[in-house]
């Protein structure tokens, strides 16, 4: 993400923001159009295709069975990965995930994990021996800013619509399916700071111009379940309070969109 945006362009975006405006006409606390489609890949136990402005992400869920981690012997395991494939942007490179992709995957994972949206206890088959492994793979097809929110919505939607095969007495998957035990909808909400303003759902250009970034994930009880300040720059305590406030409101809007998509 090292493309150079001339300083003059950054200053333009900041001056707009200081007037409460954005280049694409949105309000500072307004998301771009969000399109959520569930069950788009029939080989996956659950899937979603999310478009947020020009950003497009597939999420796919596969469920397997295996050993639990030694320190959580009766918990199922959720593993979240993100690939920023060369298709999605001219500066994304093939190869193992870089720190950008690792951060996206870990922040999305943390929001879902900490909200306990996925009931991992219900994914235990036999304590200490066998639990269900839930792989959430995020495949970013088009990168137009705000990956974390697009990926977070895609992952949550894919999980919420997943049907996992029931195991038989020999621990082999059967034809019978059960929904994954999803009991909450955790969603991230990301802001960038431009000058003195916080802008929700940054576009690609706003991301390039950013001074600093913060993500606040909330659950349906309006609890904050994950936060992540990213990139260079800092926030005052008041700015963080403001971000949490907006994230709680926006989270509800996004959850409504997910519920609409999966019903």
């Amino acid at each position, binding site marked *: 993400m090292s493309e150079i945006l001339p300083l003059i362009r950054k200053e333009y975006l900041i001056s707009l923001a200081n007037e409460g405006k954005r280049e694409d006409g949105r309000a500072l606390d307004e998301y771009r159009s969000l399109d959520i489609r569930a069950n788009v890949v029939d*080989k996956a136990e659950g899937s979603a295709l999310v478009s947020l402005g020009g950003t497009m992400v*597939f999420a796919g869920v596969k469920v397997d069975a295996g050993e639990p981690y030694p320190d959580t012997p009766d918990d199922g395991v959720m593993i979240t990965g993100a690939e920023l*494939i060369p*298709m999605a942007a001219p500066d994304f490179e093939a190869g193992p995930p870089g720190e950008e992709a690792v951060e996206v995957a870990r922040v999305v994972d943390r929001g879902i994990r900490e909200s306990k949206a996925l009931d991992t206890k219900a994914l235990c088959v036999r304590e200490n021996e066998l639990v269900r492994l839930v*792989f959430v*793979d995020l*495949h970013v*097809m*088009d990168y137009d800013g705000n990956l974390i929110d697009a990926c977070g919505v895609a992952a949550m939607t894919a999980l919420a619509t997943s049907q996992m095969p029931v195991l038989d007495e020999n621990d082999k998957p059967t034809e019978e399916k059960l929904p994954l035990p999803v009991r909450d909808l955790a969603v991230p909400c990301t802001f960038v700071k431009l000058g003195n303003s916080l802008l929700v759902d940054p576009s690609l250009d706003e991301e390039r111009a950013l001074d600093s970034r913060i993500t606040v994930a909330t659950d349906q009880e309006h609890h904050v379940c994950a936060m992540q300040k990213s990139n260079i720059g800092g926030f005052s305590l008041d700015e963080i309070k403001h971000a949490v406030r907006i994230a709680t409101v926006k989270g509800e809007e996004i959850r409504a969109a997910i519920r609409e998509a999966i019903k």
Partner: protein
Amino acid sequence: MERVDGRRFDELRPIKIEAGVLKRADGSCYIEWGRNKIYAAVYGPKKVLPRHLEKDDRAILRCRYNMAPFSVEERKRPGPDRRAVEIGKVMQGALEPAILVHYYPKSMIEISVEVVQANAGTRCAGITAVSVALADAGIPMRDLVPACAAGKVDGQIILDLAKEEDNLGEADMPVAIIPRLNQITLLQMDGKLAEQEVEQAVALAMQGCQQVYQMQIDALRKKYAGAEYE
């Protein structure tokens, strides 16, 4: 012979091609071919990195074929495996003869195919989509490159094997052609075929390619309405 999905021996699966579906890529294409769902993207011509791969007299091509972890029955580890590396290589061999690489010396054209749902025939669908994405990117070409497989199932040479046919069939042969030059630029085969069956299968696959070719043109016409492509 009755095919699993009721098709005639020389009938393609339903194909939907859409050009220009991605924002960032210079050219792109989405294809649904039977139950395959595949995206193709093209970036370039652009600067060559690393520099020592640069060619003085032409653009180089880089072809990446990749499957999403959730695109197949068993979860695939992320990133290209050996099969994907080989497909990337033959895709390049299929496409490069159609591209006027000498127009862009010291540059690079990056091609990506991402399979999000796989169901037999992904390399043909991928080549078909890339070719449309190249046109969408405005890369000058001698022609489009349509691709299509033929194969042998229950002793019959048939067109465009579905997954179940491929699993049980005696042979599968993906083919790509440059229609204007009447050249075969992709040809692979695995299975068992007698000598004359090879000929028969290649010929049938070439007919399939011709049908795919029309769909490619239609997709580009639809995107660039009013502009004549041929």
